[in-house]
Structure formats: C-alpha cells, structure tokens
C-alpha cells in the first residue's frame, strides 16, 4: 500500500484492533486450520477417498476411525475432509466471481456518476428483486448439475450487495480533494481508479468479502442438501448432511460431524467478518 502516507498506520491500527478481538482471532485460527487441512487433504487424509469396507459397515467413532464410518464402511473424517475441499472451493471461487463483478460495477458506477450511474444502479435494483434461489434451481435443472455452473450462478447472485456498497464508498471518495487534484493533474481515469480510489475502498471490500463467503457456503449446502447442487461421487458438506439425515436415527454421528463442521466454519467466518468490520470501519461498528 504505497498510495497514501496514512495507509501503513491505518492497516497497522486495524490489525491491532482486530487482534484484540478474541472471537475474531479464534475465527481466523479455525479458518486457517480448516483451509490448510482442505489443501493438504490428499496427503493427510487417514484413508483414500474411494476406500470402503462393506464388512465393517457403519461404526461409531473409534481409534481407527476418529469420526466413525458410514454404512459402506467409509471413513467419515476422510469424507468430511474431501467435502471441505469442494465446499470451501465453491465458497471462495463464487465469492471471487461476485467480488470481481461487484467491485468493477460499483467503482465504474460510482465514479462515472450521472446517467451511467443511474442506469447501472437501476439494473442492480431490478436484479435485486429477482428470485435468484429459484432461478439457480431452474438453471441446475435445465443445464444439469455441474459445479462450474453452480459457482458461476452463485457468484452472479452475490455481486449485487458488493456493487451497491462499493458504489456508495466511491461516491464519497470522488468528492475528496485529492481526487480532484489528481484529475486536475491530468492523470488518466484508469490510473486514478486503480491508484487512488480502489485502495481506499479496500477495507469495505475485505469486510463484505468475509461476510459473503458464509452466504455462498450456505447457498451451496442448501442446494446440495436438496440434491440439486454438488453431485456424487463428489462430496460436500451439504451432501454429507443430507446423507446424515437419511440415517440419523441409527447413525447420528453421520449427521453431527458434518453439521458441526459446517456450523463451525460459518461461525468463524461471521465472527471474523464482524471483527474486521469493527477494526476497519469503526464508524459502522454500532450496526
């Protein structure tokens, strides 16, 4: 961040505030562990993804299978680890799609102002009113349930809030004197946006990215739970939960552990998001 002199101390300040927030730090730790486990899964998973032991069948947690096994004798911990890769990948990739569209749309709209702004924001308003969850289901039915389509569709839904928030911020920044100075100096528009506008919106972008990821993970597991998202042989938290529900009377651990993993991740992301909001945007902390 070499854009402004106040910048380094701002980020240092924010980090100090964040590190004092114990819940947010706990969330950050849990997430770091979760993401590392997901990345390292092929090397650290106790069993191979396709390994099954039909003679063993479903067993409760034990020394050999820490989280137990399912009806096919598959190790639940291994299934959850591989499921994490899919759920987290959808979470991060769809958020990245949302982030890219939202930030571009919001910056251009807020910076251009006038007619362009009006048209672009009316588009967002109209899209906001569309029943997107239902649309995604329609898409999945028509074009088949494939993962790429799934995160494109989710990303295409989630960018709207980001666009609105970024636009609001850019509108405020545009009126600042240093932007006027940059315009008077004859800097090209793209350079002003990239060097002077975007870095100042970064805080808000980080906050809402952190808060978008849990929404995306929720949406994916919602669809997978209904059988309309991730399809076997791939695995995801939502899919594991829906399997767990089918046999929860006999094998409750098959529901508990995937559900706990999902909820723990959502907790961590939400606490981290709230913490980041308090740290980076003290004015909004009362909301």
């Amino acid at each position, binding site marked *: 961040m070499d854009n402004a002199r106040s910048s380094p101390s701002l980020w240092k300040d924010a980090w100090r505030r964040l590190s004092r927030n114990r819940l947010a730090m706990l969330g950050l730790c849990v997430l770091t562990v979760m993401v590392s486990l997901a990345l390292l899964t092929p090397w650290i998973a106790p069993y191979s993804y396709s390994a099954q032991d039909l003679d063993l069948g479903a067993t409760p947690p034990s020394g050999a299978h820490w989280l137990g096994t399912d009806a096919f004798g598959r190790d639940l911990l291994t299934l959850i680890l591989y499921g994490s890769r899919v759920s987290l990948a959808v979470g991060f990739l769809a958020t990245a799609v949302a982030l890219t569209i939202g930030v571009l749309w919001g910056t251009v709209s807020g910076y251009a102002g006038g007619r362009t702004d009006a048209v672009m924001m009316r588009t967002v308003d109209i899209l906001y*009113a569309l029943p997107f969850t239902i*649309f995604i*289901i329609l898409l999945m039915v028509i*074009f088949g349930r494939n993962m790429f389509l799934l995160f494109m569709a989710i990303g295409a839904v989630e960018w709207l809030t980001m666009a609105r928030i970024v636009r609001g911020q850019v509108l405020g920044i545009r009126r600042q004197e240093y932007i006027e100075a940059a315009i008077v100096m004859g800097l090209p528009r793209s350079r002003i946006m990239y060097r002077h506008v975007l870095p100042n919106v970064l805080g808000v972008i980080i906050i809402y990215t952190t808060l978008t990821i849990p929404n995306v993970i929720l949406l994916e597991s919602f669809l997978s739970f209904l059988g309309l998202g991730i399809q076997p042989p791939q695995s995801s938290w939502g899919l594991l939960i829906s399997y767990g529900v089918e046999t929860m009377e006999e094998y409750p651990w098959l529901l508990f552990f995937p559900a706990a993993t999902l909820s723990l991740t959502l*907790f961590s992301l*939400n606490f981290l998001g709230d913490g980041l909001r308090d740290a980076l945007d003290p004015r909004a902390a009362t909301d």
Partner: protein
Amino acid sequence: MPAFILKRLLQALPVLLIVITASFFMVRLAPGDPFSQERALPVEVMKGLRTYYKLDQPLVTQYIEYLKNIAQGDFGPSFKYSGRTVTEIIGAGLPVTFELGAYALLIALLVGISSGVIASLRPNTWQDYVPMSLAMIGICLPSYVLGPLLVLIVGIWLEWLPVSGWGYIPGDKILPSVTMGFVYAAYISRLARGGMLEILSQDFIRTARAKGVSESMIVLRHALRGGMQPVISFMGPALAGLLGGSFVVETIFQIPGLGRYYVQAAFNRDYTLILGMTIFFAVLIVVFNLLADIVAAWMNPRLRSGKSAGG
C-alpha cells in the same frame, strides 16, 4: 403516498416481465428441447401441451400466447401429473405454505423483536451478550441442520412432538414452524438491536428522559417506531427467504406445500410445473417487496420522496 405506491408498482412491472421472459426462454431453449422430444409422455399430456403451448406456431407467438394465458392465472398442464394443471397444484400447496410461513414469521417477530429490544437496553452486559450469542447460533445453524437435529432430539429421542406431516396429528405443526422461524428470529433480533441502539442515542430520547418520561414509555412510545425501521425493511427479503426455506423445511417434515412440489418438480424435470411455479414465486416476492416498501414509507415519510428503500 399514492404517487409513491404507483411509482413502486411501475418499477415492479419490468422485474416481472424479465422473470417471465427469462424463465420461458430458458425452459424452451433448454438442451434437447423437452417439449418436442418424443419422450414417454402420456398421450393426453402431449395433447394438452400442444394445445396449451401452440407448439405448431413460432416461438415468439407461443411466448405471447403464454403471457396471455398466465395473465388469466392459467399456467397450463403439468408435465408429469397427467390431468392436473399447474394452477391446481399451486392452489393445493399455497395454503399450506402460507400457514407454515405465517407461523414461522410470527415466531420470528415475537422472539426476534423482544430479544433485540431487551439486548439494546443494556448494551455490552450479559443482557446483551446472551441474546446476541443465541442470534449468532441461529444464523450459523441453517434450517437443514437445525431441522434434522430437532427431529432427532425432540421427536425421536424425547418423543415429545410428531416429526412429519401437517395437520394430521396435533402438534405436528410446531417443529416445522420453529425450524423455519428460528433463523429469521436471529436476523430480526440483530436488526432490532441495531435500530434501537441508534434511536436510543438520539436527542429526542434524551429530551424525553430529561423531562422525566418513564423508561418503558420511552421504549414503547418513542423508540420502537423508529427502531423497528431496519426490521421492516428486512420483511421483504425475509418473506422471500421464507419461500426458499419452505423448500428445505417441507422436504424434511414431509409437508405437502409449494416448496416440496417445487423440489419434486425439479427432480422429475416437470418443466411446465417448474416454469409456472418460478413465475408464481417471482410474483409473490415482488409483491412482498412492494408491501414492505410501502409499510416502510408509511412509517418513515422521508423515504417517500427519496430513493426506494432497498434491502
């Protein structure tokens, strides 16, 4: 106020048109054109489809015909349930889903507002932390986790309440309504707390306190109306979300409502039912958003002249 309502109505129309057009062409241009395929469709269904969709006409004519039909509330025949029209199926599921949604919303509002207001009265004490921690749990326990857990613990292990059906056994409506309402109670609680905190810090509240108005009077008469603003803006999205929630809750508890029909239609690839229900859901959501905006404008006159109250 009438001008505001008219303006919002006019804004809602293009949204509906986009939904109808997009869904219609998406279904009709789907890979492998489900309508012309010689699939094992019953003869009378195929005949019904031909007459309803005017399949011998060009696609644009079909589209205009479809618009005319749905304007009269006629969504055509179902693909899979021969002899039943989409309108009939919607008519059968709607009262159930509405009842479920109404109970869930009632629970959400009662629990959410009271806990949010209580939390806002003593911020950063246990009276604030306890409801807010519960709200966080509500947000992180989606209905497809909470529902099965309630079924397992309350229904199967403790045998306190029935776990499936709707209106068959006394008490079978309790678990689905709680499952559906809990997450909204959580959101509403957080919004109510935020709204109240903002209002309670304003000058007119300080004036009222200085004049010796009792604390309960301040909360009930002066702060609630303004403090509930965020909750009311949330009502539009919440009602839309309740529809989505009905997919999960009705599937878990085997309730014959719209959500369950929709999920089944998606599995059966019942294209006409999906198309009709998608459009019907869109109309509902647009109407809910409209109502929420109107109520918000009625409670806060400043919104009438300015931009629409967005979520």
